[in-house]
């Protein structure tokens, strides 16, 4: 078995003249939950769409399950897009039938657990479900597909706290079976709870990628006026994140690492005036 379930090398994607992804590199190991973090428009969704063959990169290579991406691999990948499931006139049961026909390892038992627990009405059109129920339905289909790789775009958006907590636990259990998940999300506190590794993407480039534990070990947070020894990455409120191997300052959270890398040393402080 190849060690990496996803291996993205130097992919470039242009929409017309606009470069949307510029030399993107990252890899995901088997059994790993990998998160893509970045501001809106950074290229997260485009990256995910390249992973499941919706978009073709202009340059670079994507390997999935150790092979160059090809459509025959797609029944081992289940995707939850940012638009959720949106076929018109589809009832819950129609989705179940469609997915069970398309995924050879479909698991009806797991799907039924979701249906019973969340009281999903399979006889009702899914377009009439509440937004939260649509997400649950989509996640139920994705997890029940039997796929080895899940690609999830904002999976917990619009979920209430209880369901959200259930979902995070389910995803964690899913990965424990040696399967992998690539998640794009703005919910960094949640990602910190479940993800093993991450990449920060900004303006189409991966500016930092690591495991969460390693990233925390390599960085420290210090006060803006404190003496620090290391490379300053960016500001986080009134503090700075810096990279050092010295034992000083305090360990950062994933949120602080993400903000500092995305924001850099620019700080938006409209109420701070030099003449006051």
């Amino acid at each position: 078995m190849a060690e990496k379930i996803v291996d993205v090398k130097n992919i470039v994607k242009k929409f017309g003249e606009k470069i949307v992804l510029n030399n993107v590199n990252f890899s995901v190991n088997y059994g790993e939950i990998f998160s893509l973090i970045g501001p809106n428009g950074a290229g997260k969704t485009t990256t995910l769409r390249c992973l499941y063959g919706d978009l073709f990169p202009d340059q670079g290579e994507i390997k999935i399950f150790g092979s160059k991406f090809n459509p025959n691999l797609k029944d081992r990948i289940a995707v939850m897009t940012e638009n959720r499931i949106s076929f018109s006139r589809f009832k819950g049961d129609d989705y179940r039938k469609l997915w069970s026909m398309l995924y050879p390892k479909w698991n009806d038992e797991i799907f039924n657990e979701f249906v019973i627990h969340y009281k999903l009405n399979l006889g009702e059109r899914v377009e009439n479900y509440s937004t939260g129920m649509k997400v649950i339905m989509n996640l139920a289909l994705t997890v029940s597909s039997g796929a080895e790789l899940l690609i999830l775009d904002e999976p917990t958006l619009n979920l209430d706290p209880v369901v959200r907590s259930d979902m995070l636990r389910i995803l964690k259990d899913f990965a424990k079976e040696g399967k992998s998940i690539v998640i794009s999300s703005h919910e960094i506190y949640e990602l910190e709870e479940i993800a093993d590794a991450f990449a920060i993407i900004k303006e189409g480039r991966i500016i930092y990628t690591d495991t969460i534990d390693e990233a925390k070990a390599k960085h420290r947070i210090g006060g803006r006026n404190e003496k620090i020894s290391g490379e300053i990455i960016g500001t986080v409120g009134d503090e700075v994140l810096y990279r050092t191997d010295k034992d000083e300052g305090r360990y950062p959270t994933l949120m602080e690492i993400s903000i500092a890398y995305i924001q850099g040393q620019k700080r938006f402080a409209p109420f701070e005036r030099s003449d006051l």
Partner: protein
Amino acid sequence: MIQKLEAYFMKDFIEKGGALVVFAILMFIPVDFLRGIFMILMITIVLSHIDPYRRRKESISELMALPFSYSEIFWFPFVFLVTIVTIIQLSVGGIIDLGIYLSFSQILHSLIFLTAYYGIFNIFAIAGLSGGGFIWLFWVADMILGSIGPESQNLYRMISPIFQGNEIAALLFAVAILVVSFYLFSKKGVTKRWQKRSSM
């Protein structure tokens, strides 16, 4: 493959079944001109997911998120339409007792028309234009070009998907359009206009 084709047919029947049944019934009217119009309407409905101006919820992306390839997304609707048109033409041939030769000729005529216009719709959609709008412009142009001058001197009439002056030439022309549209579809996709407005 058959399982996927079946799944695709099921999806299309659920989403578009009502409108397709109406046009399928109307295609029983044995007038070529009307049959052509209803066939274009069926193409427009079946391919609405790739029309940049009709796509409501980016459903081609929804299809690509499932285990379908671009080739399958191109060919499955074509197979779906060929199946519907063939069944209708066979039924019409049986009802009005056309005989084997005429029935076969009618089916071939319809399939040439379907092949050409299916390809045309795709080419416009790939170019980021409204397939559902420009297909009618092509139909008008096809009608005008095929009607100019005496029939024997109009070379376009030979290959015209409407007039099919020479069935073999028209078939080759239709297949050429289909092949070109498939090449463009599999190389470029139909995401041009949509990509510009979608989130990244």
